[in-house]
């Protein structure tokens, strides 16, 4: 998977690394901003109230 990605990326070695770093940051940002809160809200039971 990653070797294919490396071949697809254009430009010299330093540009490929730069693009990959940007991609990693983007993936982590999507996780923190949308994916993780969605998992926490829908799949992990969180109750801080007493039954009324």
């Amino acid at each position: 998977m990653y070797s294919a990605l490396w071949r697809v990326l254009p430009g010299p070695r330093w540009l490929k690394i730069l693009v990959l770093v940007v991609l990693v940051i983007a993936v982590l940002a999507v996780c923190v901003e949308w994916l993780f809160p969605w998992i926490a809200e829908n799949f992990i039971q969180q109750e801080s109230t007493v039954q009324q």
Partner: protein
Amino acid sequence: MSDLFITVGVLVLFFYVWYVWLGDILAGAQQDAAGVSLSETWEETTEQVVEYDRDSGSSEGAMQSRKPPVVASPREGAAFATMMVPRFGTNYVRTIAESVDLKKVLNDPSTGIGHYSSTTPLGAVGNFALAGHRTTFGAPFGQIDKLRVGDRIYVETQKGWYVYRFRNIEFVWPTQSDVLSDVPRETIVAKDRILTMTSCHPKTSTAERVIAYSVFESFVPRKSGAPAEVAEMRAES
């Protein structure tokens, strides 16, 4: 294929780091900012007053300790107050909204603390009960176990500051709803104004609930100035 599994594994680890640590820092900062911006919509005061102290019975405080205004039930989901707890840190300013609905209030990055609509309104005699997460979604009550007897808790509204003093903590089953009674765990007629905070216990579990009780001490009207400790917190943050 193997690198895909490694990637998923790394992301699961990252999720755990986010769940127990990073997420609360990010969402907590968001909730603090929301609390500060709600406070900023209220009139700014540069005056300072020393809080009423029941131990010394300071005369300045006697003027403040008259009956506080009652906040009649706001509509569901509406943010109507902020809470400042010096023990939780000088930056701690969280918004209190009506209802303990998870989606509308408790999981919302712009609120965080919810008022049980079935309990007494803020300022009235009885039990003003609140719920907040212990972990995740900004964890507004994440440090609830750090409270010490006598710690001040400030609830700020447009009219001024309700000053409470932390009294005790207890651990109950999720079904023990009598912690929300006008006099917690009793059926007698209330004379005091109680602030009850409920959260989950142990941390990250939903097996039990941690309940923290505080007692109303005085009300500081906005026109007389901010309580000294609040002014100090604002200067530091």
